[in-house]
């Protein structure tokens, strides 16, 4: 075991982690621990754009953007945080441009902007061009630009280091962060990083679904590490299903395709979104569009022999426009489906895309131990976190924005905290939990296999807690997850070695997914209303009287070792917008 000491440790090197690292490296001795080489992070898969009311192409302002974000999140958004997001968006985009990001340009040479779902002029009058973009690889360009600037700033990376434990120490009843424990993939060695401040920027949890736009590596490691140490997870029942994933594969086809004029059609060729969202049509918010697609499918208007998908139609758009604005997604259709998007519509279905919930933080990125108490020295930003700027449903282009605004904020805040505070003493045997976990898996002779359990989990989640949920389906999921968690104790791996043991890491990742799936299903069961991405057929309406509040899930361990989940609730911060019925 090796022990390292850094002022600031950042867990994850996607957009949020690298944006934080650029700030904290200037201000404090910083290490970035990342399970992937930074440029492999899933920020790079984001396509359509990053929202900011630059008003480069038409009238716009940050107040409209704030409103759209809150309405998009079905009023579960903390309004103070949404205001910061929308205000700081403008500088966040300009900062990236100055760092070198090659945005698309207007004829005058300014940053060009396009339409995106849920972003509107004057509180819902009509779609507005607010998304700054770089073709349909905006996330790729953000990831590359941030990595380039990390190289420029000399950011220190520990590549292929998996953070498996968060060290939390209680001093006088106050939970404090002492550092993290990481597993080095290349050698199997365990490293303890003592740090004055730690920032989680480790991304989402989408791999507990089968049809998902998420990478294989998005297994909620950061959420799980904090949760296991008694820290809460907020709003985990809210997961976004992106309307346009490639049929059965789940690969993302950007909403920008509809922003450029693409249309969703059922088997009769009907533009069905006109029925569900008369003003915004195909550019309604993602939860609305995904439900509309499944309603079409369930009512027998789905396409294909099994009627199990609908079409994204781009055939009326000029090939030059597709080549210039949507080159990557049209290539995906050619590569994976053998379809030519110039002439043929693309079969799509909703795909599990984004966790609105996560580690609760305030607007400085400080992690909360309960509704109000901050964990000194602990921060989170990006998809791993819940600020909450996305509420019950995130608007497209607001995640690339979130990682930049709150990545920057948490990088500054964590480094400033490191400058003013001393190290927290490490607990005795800091690596104990990880060592035991690794040894148990390496030595297990159990009969359960990781891949089989993971597939059962994914199929259960797809079938029971996806776009439509009921008490019965969620209970089915809760029971199945409990069964899988029990069987997980009997999991064994074949690779017993130390060198690049991805067999071992997949087993650990499955443990994380199981813990988080349980939190998600349990939170969803208790929320007896429909709001944003959480749609309960048995409670189809939003219930502001009982559920205008954030879910806070805590892991509890009884004296006899039995684990359970305790749910609590946190009020939503409301400033200037009273909840209204949400129509597009």
């Amino acid at each position, binding site marked *: 075991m090796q022990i390292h000491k850094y002022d600031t440790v950042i867990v994850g090197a996607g957009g949020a982690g690298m944006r934080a690292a650029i700030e904290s490296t200037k201000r404090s001795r910083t290490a970035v621990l990342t399970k992937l080489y930074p440029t492999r992070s899933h920020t790079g898969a984001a396509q359509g754009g990053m929202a900011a009311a630059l008003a480069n192409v038409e009238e716009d302002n940050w107040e409209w953007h704030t409103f759209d974000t809150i309405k998009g999140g079905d009023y579960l958004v903390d309004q103070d945080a949404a205001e910061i997001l929308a205000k700081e968006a403008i500088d966040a985009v300009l900062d990236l441009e*100055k*760092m070198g990001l090659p945005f*698309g340009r207007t004829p005058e040479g300014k940053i060009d902007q396009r339409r995106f779902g849920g972003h509107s002029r004057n509180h819902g009058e009509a779609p507005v061009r607010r998304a700054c973009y770089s073709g349909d690889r905006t996330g790729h360009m953000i990831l590359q630009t941030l990595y380039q600037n990390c*190289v420029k700033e000399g950011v220190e990376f520990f590549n292929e280091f998996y953070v498996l434990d968060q060290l939390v120490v209680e001093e006088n009843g106050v939970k404090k962060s002492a550092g993290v424990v990481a597993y080095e993939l290349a050698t199997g060695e365990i490293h303890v990083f003592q740090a004055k401040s730690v920032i989680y920027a480790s991304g989402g949890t989408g791999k507990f679904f089968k049809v998902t736009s998420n990478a294989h590596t998005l297994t909620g490691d950061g959420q799980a590490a904090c949760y296991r140490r008694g820290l809460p997870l907020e709003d985990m029942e809210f997961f976004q299903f992106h309307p346009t994933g490639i049929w059965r594969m789940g690969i993302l086809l950007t909403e920008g395709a509809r922003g450029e004029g693409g249309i969703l059609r059922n088997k009769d060729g009907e533009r069905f979104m006109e029925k569900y969202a008369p003003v915004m049509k195909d550019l309604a918010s993602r939860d609305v569009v995904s439900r509309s697609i499944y309603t079409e499918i369930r009512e027998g208007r789905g396409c294909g022999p099994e009627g199990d998908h609908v079409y994204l139609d781009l055939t009326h758009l000029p090939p030059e426009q597709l080549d210039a604005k949507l080159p990557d997604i049209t290539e995906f259709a050619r*590569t994976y489906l053998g379809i030519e998007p110039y002439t043929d519509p693309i079969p799509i279905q909703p795909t599990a895309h984004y966790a609105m919930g996560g580690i609760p933080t305030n607007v400085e990125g400080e992690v909360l131990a309960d509704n109000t108490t901050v964990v000194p020295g602990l921060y989170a930003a990006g998809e791993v976190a819940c600020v909450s700027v996305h509420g019950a449903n995130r608007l497209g282009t607001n995640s690339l924005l979130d990682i930049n605004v709150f990545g920057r904020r948490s990088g500054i805040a964590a480094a400033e905290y490191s400058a003013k505070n001393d190290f927290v003493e490490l607990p005795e045997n800091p690596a104990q939990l990880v060592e035991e976990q690794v040894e148990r898996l390496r030595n297990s002779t159990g009969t359960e296999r990781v891949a089989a359990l993971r597939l059962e989990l994914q199929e259960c989640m797809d079938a029971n807690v996806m776009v439509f949920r009921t008490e019965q389906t969620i209970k089915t999921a809760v029971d199945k997850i409990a069964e899988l968690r029990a069987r997980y104790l009997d999991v064994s791996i074949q*690779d017993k070695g130390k060198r690049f*043991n991805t*067999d071992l890491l997949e087993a650990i990742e499955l443990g994380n997914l199981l813990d988080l799936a349980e939190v998600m299903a349990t939170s969803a069961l208790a929320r007896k209303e429909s709001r944003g991405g959480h749609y309960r057929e048995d409670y189809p309406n939003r219930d502001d009287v009982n559920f205008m509040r954030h879910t806070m899930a805590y892991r509890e361990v009884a004296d006899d070792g039995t684990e359970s989940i305790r749910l609590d609730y946190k009020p939503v911060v409301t400033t200037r917008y009273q909840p209204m019925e949400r129509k597009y």
Partner: protein
Amino acid sequence: MATPTLEKSDKAPEAGFADTPYITATFRIRRFNPEVSDEVEWQDFEISIDPKERVLDALHKIKWEMDGTLTFRRSCAHGICGSDAMRINGKNRLACKTLIKDINPEKPITVEAIKGLTVLKDLVVDMDPFFQAYRDVMPFLVTKGNEPTRERLQSPEDRERFDDTTKCILCAACTSSCPVFWNDGQYFGPAAIVNAHRFIFDSRDEAGEQRLEILNDRDGVWRCRTTFNCTDACPRGIEVTKAIQEVKRALITRRF
């Protein structure tokens, strides 16, 4: 009630496409694990798989159902993250962007690590020299003077000038397909030059001269023998050889 699409998936739990017949394919994989043996070994795995699936799906099937020790990198699984460049039937490709039907599954499909970088285990190579060459070309925007209040202006034409080389995902398929790089690991390699090109031809950048000097080095662009392997290998369709030629031309004319 469950989501309808997914209920139907029960009928074909593993297939990407229900109407496609499964085939039997042999994957011949170059195995190496110095923790166990210094010897390299080719190992055959026979699997039943839908030919419309990806080579990555086949590798997963082998790892998950047959041999958990098989080791490779992967993440996004759709050609964006650059983790899974490997040599498939003798050509550098991304495993997640190569469909089995497109590489003649009637014969054994060979899979091995990319060349020119040290193999650490099975299909995993040491990427550090590759990223070092990238860092050496100053892969970041350099500007002088005060920053403007708003964005720097750039015409759509100037933006288009370097669009192709912004697509690079640093997968190393190009560099590890280059015979010059195989013979001499000191050569910067195509990927680093592509990333230098991305800034040299960016109208906002003011360090083109410095980058050109770096690439004028004995291990720089002049080592390129224009074999076009890199262009063929690039999974993003970047005209890599053309970009290298443009850098050479800029060095001769110092105009860019």
